[in-house]
């Protein structure tokens, strides 16, 4: 239930930590854009597989952890693709089954294409997103936001939110365990009651934390400013050119497969 810090934990220990965030973002965001531009399902699949290999082999993310992570969005994508394949209209019929007099499941070439397309897009897009979140810690992203001139208010807020996520998750875990030890989740009715109590206490905790935050900031002469850290290694040409080459190859593939 509380796998919250695993993503950040992994990001802080990945082998690409020292690579400049620009390079990693270029690869991640570039891949997402290319996935959205491709008209077929082959290129996104290639993208997804190559990115996964990069995540596991180069960034040295634990394979089991990665597959578990990927399983969550892919199961949703699989169900959606399944429905699209059976229910969307098409001309060339491949297979059909009359389940009830009023419902016929038909797979057509077009629907199959469309289903695979949706699935592969989700697959590719998720791999690209996971690449970013598994190799770039949030703290690096805050520095990037500052460089891209995103308003301070937005960055400050997200930094505070980021800081407190961990505190609240820890609090939630403690309360949840305390409820569990006193058999709070044994019956369904009981579970609903316990769950609502959990949220109630978290709300009060967060209210308290907010007041404490203001005191802590006041104690240190808060004057509307929040320090930003922009320290990364310089952009490395080797990794940057490798990323650019990869993106060019993908573009080439898109052009080639779409004729």
């Amino acid at each position, binding site marked *: 239930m509380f796998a919250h810090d695993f993503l*950040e934990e992994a990001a*802080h220990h990945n082998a690409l930590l020292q690579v400049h965030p620009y390079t990693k973002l270029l690869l991640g965001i570039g891949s997402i854009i290319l996935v959205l531009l491709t008209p077929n399902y082959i290129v996104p699949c290639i993208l997804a597989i190559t990115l996964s290999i990069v995540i596991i082999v180069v960034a040295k993310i634990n394979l089991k952890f990665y597959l578990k992570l990927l399983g969550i969005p892919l199961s949703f994508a699989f169900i959606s693709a399944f429905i699209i394949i059976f229910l969307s209209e098409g001309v060339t019929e491949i297979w059909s089954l009359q389940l009830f007099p009023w419902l016929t499941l038909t797979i057509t070439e077009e629907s199959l294409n469309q289903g695979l397309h949706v699935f592969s897009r989700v697959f590719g897009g998720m791999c690209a997103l996971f690449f970013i979140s598994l190799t770039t810690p949030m703290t690096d992203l805050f520095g990037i936001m500052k460089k891209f001139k995103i308003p301070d208010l937005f960055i400050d807020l997200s930094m505070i939110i980021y800081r407190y996520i961990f505190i609240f998750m820890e609090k939630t875990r403690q309360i949840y365990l305390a409820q569990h030890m006193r058999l709070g989740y044994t019956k369904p009715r009981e579970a609903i009651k316990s769950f609502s109590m959990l949220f109630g206490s978290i709300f009060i905790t967060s209210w308290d934390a907010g007041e404490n935050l203001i*005191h*802590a900031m*006041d*104690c240190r*002469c808060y004057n509307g*400013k929040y320090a930003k*850290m922009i320290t990364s290694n310089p952009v490395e040409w080797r990794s940057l050119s490798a990323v650019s080459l990869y993106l060019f190859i993908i573009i080439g593939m898109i052009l080639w497969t779409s004729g």
Partner: protein
Amino acid sequence: MQMHPLIELKDLEYAYPYSSPALSGISLRIQRGEKIALVGSNGAGKSTLLLTLNGMIRPDRGIVTFHGNPVSYDRASLRKIRQKIGFVFQDPDVQIIAPTVWQDVAFGPVNLDYTDELVRQTVHNALHNVGLEGFDKRPPYHLSGGEKKRVAIAGVLAMDPDILVLDEPTSMLDPAGSEDIMDLLDELNHQGKTIIISTHDVELAYLWADRIVLMEKGRIIASGTPEEAFSDKELVRRARLKTPILLELSQELGSRGMKIAETLPRTVLDIIRIIEQNHHGSICLSSNGYGTIHVGDVDQISGPAIQTILARASYDTIGVMGSRAKICARQWGLTPDISYAVIDKCILQAMNGRTSLILTTGGMISRVFERVTVFNQTNNRSIPIQSLIKSENSDDLPGV
């Protein structure tokens, strides 16, 4: 003309809404360079009193003066006071507000409108001071309790306060972590900072503080040296505390007819001395006489040099004093035997015929020499103490 006390509290009264008074009739003078411990049970008003010092709580009645001027509660003056009086919360998770260590320590300096260069410099120095170099990019949830506490202290140090106020600095730490923090506070006090802590750990307060302020139900019931404050059993009972074990021991020894000196014992060393005086000489001086205390300056010795010295000479005990020395020891792969109250423990070792090595930095070296010399003079002893560098230069390595 008499100097103004650094902070003076006069007849403070304060009550939280809908509850009984948290502070009543509080008057206290705090002088520059003091080490004060507020000691009392839970709910005695310690934290509330500390929060009035930097204007976080405005007392209902009474005045707080800082450098002789009454504190005013407008935004600009509060900012000035809070820069000069650094407050470290009990729970570091409350105090650490930024997603990385560097950003958190930089929070104060940035809000004080330092230039970027100065911010970098002060943050670097503050982290250096508390022994957390290289932790810049670490997120706080990855740190241990002691490290979080250090980050919190660094965040306050970065604003260069004259006074450090710490609410229960050791309440969430393991014993070794607490000793480290108390050693750090000693070091900061040595650098000229006035330090005020609250605690209900009587042993810790008894050993560490220059002055103890006992509190009970929002009132100060005693203020004086640790010996004075804890000697009165009635006061200690009223404050829901207990007598420090060393004091109790000496009281019990005294009641059994042992001669106890004017000054009550504060350390194990003092107790040993009392027993020895009654014993007319050392309890049992080992055949080779006193052990030597060697003092090394980590700024002047390199890691390999220490390793060769350690390989050639054998020390029974290695003590490390101060954060910088601790960092060096860690880098050199040394595991110190003592990291708190180092000098006293090494004198104890020396009296028992064991040699010891104290690694420390700069001004603390003279402190070690001073302490041992004073001890020798007052107790008519001759514990030898020598600097590691000198003995190395004269090629007369100790213990070889």
